């Protein structure tokens, strides 16, 4: 345990005594945290350049522009020039384009379309832009939605008033109908109350027939006999004595007629039965007459009721006509409300997101960042390592005595790195062609960019190599530098979320320049004349770094020799003095 502590203590002492190590170990994290803290310690949405395109910058459009400007967005206006705005996205001058309609007035069941044009390769930025702008547009949409809802509510209020009025009319109709109904019910009750049932007595008609036949027979018989007597008396010229038979015959006739009278008195088949029948029939007829009277009265009553009903119905028809007119008015009013779909009212504005490059895979979008990332780290580390290899090579001193200029050595390291970088690029691009077949056309320009990027990062790595003494610290320095460049590249967090001052500096980050160039060439096929300035910038970086390395190499070489010699001699002389006592 003690040994462990002693060894650890020794390591720490050695580390701290090596100035560069101490610098890296202690100050590098401090520096990185400080820079990152200064850069990202804000929540404001700085620095978004928003292109606003519209056919005309009407008051509606200007209101959106103003609201965006209030959020510190920088607005670039493109009147009737969507293509120009899209080109500027590709070149990185604006982060997004918003295509706005001239007017936000909703005149039908059609939502107003707002289209965002974004660079899909800036994945992290796309969402930030969309979220930020969506917030603003949602407010606008809410305003419009409120207007539409208010309009509808006004119409509903009008309708309500009118319906209130019509409600009274409906009451009238209702009362009329109710009266009509009562009359009808009353008539119905009356009519239903009429007893129209006929007499139900079964009259024995055979009695009358029998009576008739009997009477007829008896009478016929009496008549016959009377007729016989009449004839006999008519025929006999006999005295009154002789008339006796006649008289007998007449008596006989009388007898027959008595018999006929007896038949009438007889209960069965007699005239009484007929009288009873007739009486019965008379009663029935009386009853029927009474019923008919009642019916007649009912008909009178019903007629009265029907007249009332007619009057009620006339009133109802009149009211209904008025109601119809009112409803037609309401209908017209409601029909004048053109926005009727709930979706349009609740979301009067719809947003579309269009990409300024064809939709593609994530690899396409990430490719530019990835390839520059690989190039950066490999070039930085290789540059540093090669310089350290040369510096720490046993042949370092011998090289000084060679009739070869310093610049040649520096360039040799650069070219070594370039060759290795080229191999890496060929491998990466070769593999990329499998996944990104549309890559061929951009290869020549891409090679130029990667060549410049490799040069810049190699020189940076070499500069680190010349600054530091130990290989470990220089590699650590290289990685730290690479990490810083990466942090401020927009690949992890959008540059737009960095505070403005530092963001201005990050635009000069070679990683940012190289990544932007690769993206523009690879994704948008931008022609070289549109990106030449960035290329020149990158080349200038390489040249300046090369000159710095030349100065570094010269200064550091002298500094190291001076320091080494001074300490070397002082130490030895002091030791010798101690030994000899001189």
């Amino acid at each position, binding site marked *: 345990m003690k040994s462990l502590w002693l060894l650890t203590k020794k390591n720490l002492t050695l580390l701290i005594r090596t100035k560069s190590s101490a610098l890296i170990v202690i100050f590098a994290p401090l520096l990185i945290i400080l820079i990152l803290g200064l850069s990202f310690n804000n929540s404001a949405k700085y620095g978004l350049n928003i292109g606003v395109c519209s056919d005309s910058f009407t008051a509606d459009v200007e209101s959106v522009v103003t609201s965006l400007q209030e959020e510190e967005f920088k607005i670039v206006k493109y009147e009737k020039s969507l293509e120009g705005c899209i080109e500027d996205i590709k070149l990185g001058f604006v982060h997004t384009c918003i295509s706005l309609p001239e007017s936000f007035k909703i005149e039908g069941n059609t939502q107003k379309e707002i289209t965002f044009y974004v660079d899909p390769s800036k994945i992290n930025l796309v969402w930030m832009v969309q979220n930020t702008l969506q917030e603003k547009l949602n407010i606008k949409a809410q305003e419009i939605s409120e207007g539409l809802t208010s309009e509808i509510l006004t119409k509903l209020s009008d309708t309500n008033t009118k319906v209130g009025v019509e409600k009274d009319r409906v009451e009238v109709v209702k009362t009329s109908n109710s009266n009509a109904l009562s009359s009808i019910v009353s008539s119905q009750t009356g009519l239903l109350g009429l007893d129209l049932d006929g007499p139900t007595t079964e009259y024995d008609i055979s009695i009358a027939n029998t009576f008739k036949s009997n009477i007829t027979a008896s009478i016929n018989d009496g008549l016959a006999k009377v007729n016989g007597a009449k004839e006999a008396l008519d025929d006999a010229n006999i005295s009154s004595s002789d008339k006796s038979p006649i008289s007998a015959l007449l008596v006989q006739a009388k007898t027959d007629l008595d018999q006929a009278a007896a038949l009438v008195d007889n209960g069965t088949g007699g005239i009484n039965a007929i009288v009873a029948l007739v009486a019965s029939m008379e009663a029935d007829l009386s009853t029927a007459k009474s019923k008919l009277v009642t019916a007649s009265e009912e008909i009178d009553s019903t007629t009265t009721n029907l007249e009332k009903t007619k009057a009620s119905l006339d009133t109802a028809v009149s009211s209904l006509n008025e109601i119809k007119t009112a409803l037609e008015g309401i209908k017209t009013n409601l029909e004048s409300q053109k926005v009727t779909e709930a979706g349009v009212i609740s979301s009067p504005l719809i947003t579309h997101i269009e990409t300024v490059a064809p939709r593609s895979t994530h690899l396409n979008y990430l490719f530019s960042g990835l390839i520059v990332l690989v190039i950066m780290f490999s070039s930085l580390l290789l540059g540093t390592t090669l310089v350290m290899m040369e510096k720490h090579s046993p042949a370092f*001193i*011998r*090289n000084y005595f060679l*009739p070869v200029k310093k610049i040649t050595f520096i360039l040799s390291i650069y070219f070594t790195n370039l060759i290795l970088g080229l191999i890496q690029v060929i491998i990466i691009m070769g593999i990329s062609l499998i996944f990104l077949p549309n890559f061929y056309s951009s290869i020549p320009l891409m090679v130029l960019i990667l060549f410049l990027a490799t040069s810049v990062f190699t020189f940076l790595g070499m500069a680190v190599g010349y600054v530091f003494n130990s290989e470990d610290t220089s590699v650590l320095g290289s990685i730290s530098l690479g990490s810083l460049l990466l942090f401020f590249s927009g690949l992890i967090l959008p540059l737009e979320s960095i505070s403005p001052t530092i963001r201005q500096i990050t635009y000069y980050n070679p990683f940012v320049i190289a990544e932007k160039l690769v993206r523009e060439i690879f994704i948008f096929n931008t022609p070289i004349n549109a990106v030449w300035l960035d290329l020149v910038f990158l080349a200038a970086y390489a040249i300046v770094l090369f000159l710095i390395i030349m100065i570094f190499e010269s200064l550091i070489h002298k500094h190291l020799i001076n*320091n080494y010699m001074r300490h070397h001699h002082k130490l030895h002389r002091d030791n010798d003095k101690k030994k000899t006592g001189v």
Partner: protein
Amino acid sequence: MESIELKEVSKSFKGTPILENINLKIEEGDILGIIGQSGSGKTTLLNLISGYLEPSEGDVVYYSKVEKQAMDLNNNLNRIKKYIGFNTQHTSFYPKLTVKENLMHFGQMYKLKKETLLTNANSLLEFTRLEKHQKKLADQLSGGMQRRLDLACSLIHKPKFLMLDEPTADLDFILQEEIGHLIQEVNKQGVTIVIASHHLDFLEKICNKIAIIHEGKLKSYGNIGNVQKPFFKEDIVINIKVKEDKEKIIKILKNLPIKKIVDQGHQLIIYPENPEKTMLALMQAVKKEDLYLYDVDLRKPSLSEVFTKVTKGFKVEE
């Protein structure tokens, strides 16, 4: 004649003087040994002679036979570099190149023609006895072979001057002998050699000129005999190799005017006050006592002794 001359040369680092007012001339064919204590400035002097460092004051002048002119070494370093070979205290080549690749690489750096380069490389491989190892990686060679390769790398362009900084550091006696032999061979081929070393015996054997540096000053410079000569007068040493009768001889010596006797077993080193009288008296006593001596000789002060005296402030009589 090729030569390098230092005129009133001083060198300081950030105000700390390292060398002061050095005047010396290295002439063609010399093997100059620079000796001094650690930190005395001998490596700095070697670096000034080679052009690796620029003097703070004074001039380093290179006289070129080929270019038939005297040139300020530092102002014309790129022209003069081809005439100079340099070996540092530690081997200086690429460990992961083979022996021949190293030679070819450094030769190509001197822009030698391919044929010349091949000839030089092969002859150096033979000279340094590395022919059989030419395809080995340099870091696979033994310490001695690495030294030889280092020397070969310094000679690949056939320099006029060869600067060697501690060429025998960390080498055992046999390897020191071997390197010494090689250096003498190189010198015989017309290469002027400047060596900075701690190994005074080694320098004494191979150098014809010596420069003694002490505390940044050139204390003594010249042919080795001339450097030693001032010390002959006082410090002639008598070596007596004895096998028997040592005690008797010591007894005799004690009666003679002798400053110090050093007993080294079979050898007695005597520091007499008067070497000639002491020698005569010793011979007479030996003869009288019938004693037996293997060998008696008068020894010059070694370079080491001279150096010790110089650095301890001995005033050399002019």
